[in-house]
């Protein structure tokens, strides 16, 4: 399996299910190409002072589009309704010290945040997993100038999206549901 293989993005058997038809090596022009001379490389502000891993070639994919609307994601279970998630909640998976993305600089999805278009997908996941129940749910507003997004539903279909932020400012976000455990 090569780094350009869509299946590498989230595991075997998912690339075609997500309808990804454009080869992943075609980087989206809005974010430039990190390996191309003369183009600007994005560095998230929250990590600008640390060693930010470069995205792999073709990341984000050319099929990604500017976001627009309300999305939801899991944040620290210590946060209460109405509180804003801190900078620590916006560390890209590739830069976290743990998790399957830790150090996986060649995986495009590890350079993106998970955001869901439908909060019910997170509520449903709470019935399955204690890890999810231990998290709060935050809503965030994403505008078209805040990066690129691509739908990446799971095998049973959901509203999961990969969001590649374009500037370092954290999005407007507020906790809407507290942790259940």
């Amino acid at each position, binding site marked *: 399996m090569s780094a350009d293989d869509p299946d590498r993005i*989230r*595991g*075997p*058997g*998912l690339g075609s299910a997500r309808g990804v038809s454009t080869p992943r090596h075609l980087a989206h022009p809005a974010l430039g190409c990190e390996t191309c001379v003369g183009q600007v490389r994005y560095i998230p502000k929250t990590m600008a002072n640390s060693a930010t891993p470069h995205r792999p070639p073709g990341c984000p994919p050319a099929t990604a589009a500017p976001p627009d609307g309300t999305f939801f*994601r*899991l944040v620290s279970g210590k946060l209460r309704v109405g509180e804003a998630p801190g900078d620590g909640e916006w560390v890209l*998976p590739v830069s*976290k*010290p*743990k*998790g*399957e*993305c*830790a150090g*996986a600089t060649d995986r495009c999805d590890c350079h993106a*945040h*998970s955001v869901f278009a439908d909060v019910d*997908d997170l509520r449903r*996941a*709470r*019935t*399955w*997993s*204690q*890890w*999810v*129940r*231990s998290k709060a749910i935050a809503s965030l507003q994403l505008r078209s100038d805040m990066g690129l997004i691509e739908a*990446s539903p*799971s*095998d*049973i279909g*959901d509203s*999961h999206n990969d969001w590649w932020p374009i500037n370092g400012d954290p999005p407007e976000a507020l906790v809407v549901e507290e942790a259940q*455990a």
Partner: protein
Amino acid sequence: MTLIPPHDPLLGALSMDEVYFDHEGPRLFSATSRSGRRFLAVAVDEDESSETYLYLPVSDARFGEIRSGALDLRTAFREPEDGSLFVVVADYEQPSRNRVSVVSPDEVAEDWLPLEGSRLQASTATRPVITAEALSLEASQRGRAMLAVELDPADIYRTEYPLRSLARISRGIQDAVDALAQEAAGRATARGAIPESILQEAELAFVESRAASFVLVLAPTSPPRLFEASLLVDASARMTELIEAGHDPESLSRLLAGSGPRARAKYRAFLEALQDDDSGASFWFAEPNTPPRTATLRREEVRGSLELLRSTTTEVREIELSRASIIAVHLRRGTFELFDHALGRRYAGYMEPDARLEIAGLPTGDQYFYRATLLAEEQYSETTDEVFTEHRLRSISERTETGNP
């Protein structure tokens, strides 16, 4: 090095199979070892440097039940087939590694388990899949015509079908094929029994069920090759044309105009059985050494075909009841029984999907009055000259002017 899923002597070298929930990493997923041993894994805990998962070993059959939602996740983790499951701590302290321990369900913290009643509900083929091409090959190998009917109701996640509904749909298929075969034989009649020779030639046998969603595989009961270019072939071809014409009202009108009242009534009954199950249907008909014929009527096209069929015939009429009481309702069966106080008459039959929603929760008994719209549809007896009327409930609402108690 990724720790999810693990490569471990106890579990085997696992590779990711399917991810059901992902949030910056898989949180509920299945993984399979090189020897084919499958696990369902769920994230349950984390700290600064580690993430903890429960890995449940599952047989293929158990996995199908869990994946389709027949077995809830909590029960699955509480009652592992082998009596044990695995706690896997993915520890990212250098050097990163997985710490794996075998535990009995009793040793697992209660709050680590999925909540009561939580289910996956993913469409799951629990029988081998068949395609039109495979059916065609099978027809050639058997030297026998084969018919497959795929049903795709919205709320069925396994290769299973409620027997009551299946009986109704199976009968709908056979009755429609019988009536079309009678027309193909040039001996169509609106009433009375269809001649024995035609029934014999058009008779279908259930061969097996297949995925996906739920496929009825049928074949003529007559001996192989005896009826090549037989009435069954002609009737199946006509049935396929009717199904296909569901996309095109003009073609469907033309085909219906060329059909007799018995065939229209039987095809209507088949469509109603589909509608009541909220299912579409695909037909694949294969003769030996001949390309298969296929046609699909999507779920949303069933209603359109039915409406057109009803509007182009005198055999269906609408009845308005202004003062009716509900005597009985069976939501599971989809049947109703009403009493019309104006005419002192009782009506019973199946309910249209919208009416099922409207009638749910309405009180029964003589003291409650409703407005109702019924369809009265002529139907033909298989054994006698009798033409009888079947009723379907289209809508029902409370009478506002009289004020129910």
